[in-house]
């Protein structure tokens, strides 16, 4: 069962210790539906990451919403991906633009994972999502 962002935020915000926070994150990663192998193409791979991170973005023209699929070979990044997905999946471009991942991650005490350091693909992922939304909302 996929949790909503609200549910995720609640359990992370209320984690009594940072260990618990990471436990939650890794659990979210575990619950992420597997990414179909055919989508794990070279172009889906975020370059320059220490961990492997795949992002597949699509646009549902009928619903006017973003479709995001992702995966990672590390547990923590996969969990963070799950949070980003919960945040943006199924939103319209206008809603995406109004949703500030930086602010949300900051609120959850996870802001360091959006640092410009190229160690994980989360920041790149958010940027790709925002840029697709910008293109689509024109």
């Amino acid at each position: 069962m996929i949790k909503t962002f609200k549910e995720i935020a609640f359990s992370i915000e209320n984690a009594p210790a940072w260990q618990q926070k990471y436990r939650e994150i890794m659990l979210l990663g575990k619950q992420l539906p597997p990414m179909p192998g055919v989508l794990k193409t070279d172009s889906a791979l975020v370059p320059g990451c220490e961990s492997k991170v795949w992002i597949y973005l699509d646009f549902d023209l009928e619903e006017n919403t973003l479709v995001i699929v992702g995966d990672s070979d590390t547990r923590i990044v996969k969990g963070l991906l799950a949070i980003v997905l919960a945040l943006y999946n199924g939103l319209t471009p206008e809603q995406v633009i109004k949703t500030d991942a930086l602010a949300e991650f900051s609120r959850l005490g996870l802001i360091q994972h959006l640092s410009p350091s190229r160690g994980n693909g989360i920041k790149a992922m958010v940027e790709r999502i925002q840029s697709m939304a910008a293109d689509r909302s024109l």
Partner: protein
Amino acid sequence: MFDVEKIRADFPALKQLINEQPLVYLDSAATTQKPQAVIAATEQFYARNNANVHRGRHTLSEQATLAYEQARATVAAFFNITANELVWTKGATEAINLVTNGLSEQLDNQSTIVISALEHHANIVPWQQLAKRTGATLLTLPLQQNGRFNVEQCVNFIEQHKPTVLAITHASNALGNITPLETILHAAKLQHTITLVDGAQAALHLQPNLQQLGCDFYVFSAHKMLGPTGLGGLYGRYERLNSLAVYQTGGEMIETVTLTETTFRQAPAKFESGTPNIAAVIAFSAAIKYLVSLDKTNVYTHEQAIFNYAVEKLQLIDGITIYSDINNNIGTLCFNYKDEHPFDIATLLDGYGVAVRSGHHCAQPLMQHLGINGSVRASFAFYNNHKDVDLFIAALQECIALLD
């Protein structure tokens, strides 16, 4: 308001005695003094945040990476460019070499490279080497006998030769003269010329808006802009920049490596191999923040006032020849006294605590052009005050008395 005494207090090195006299530092064209903010940023980095960047998962490394990339954004904003158009190098010299190396494959024996006789060696020799490598022709822009450009002549020259590349200084390090860049760059653009501007001297004094200036490349040195040694920068219009061939190879700039093949990243990373000068980048952003806090117009007005005051006083001394264009200058006074050797003048001035430069100022072709072996150079920055000028002039008169 610009309170020079308050500003001087920010520069610890200015508060010292040289040969028992208060230091009068008139060698800012060689390197500027550093404000306390820069010294403190360096210390803070090494004493707390020291870590390598980009590759570590730990807090120190993340903090260092963040500070490092924020510094790039700060400096890019100062020049009104985007952060990915800014490549860190070890100095202006390396930045020019990066470009001349990167252009090797874009030039051939049909190409023309134009420089000027006013250039610092750093903006001459790499182009000579590029010309030698590619068979390109190296020409120099017409320069008047007095070391100034006639804009019309320059434009005509560019229209006639349609250079592939034009490399020119923003301000002369020997004379301080400001190049009439606007018209020259415009003429070059019409010929689709690749343009590089050497901003090593000008960047501090003119604080250029590079997007507006419209050159393809611009180079500078941090140590001449209140920042640390061992750091410089290259601005390149993104496509132009990214089209340059890779320069140094190694860690950081690669995407993947196998024993048989390597793929590179995109600019600016592609040109930044190896562990960067992290401490210097962070300290340099402190320098730029300090400079910005002083307000560009105030700084410029003060510098010009000091320069004009020095010119006025110097002109009153019999036997002085000034080579600088005093109406169009970043604050550098190039002169000789009769046929005394500049070495003797500089050595004697030092006895009075006055620091000036003598010699060819790494601009031998310009000296040949002016028909002199060298000169004395007194170069001013915004932290100089009227008293500096008074002490300098008084010391110069004493030296002359010793020599005459």
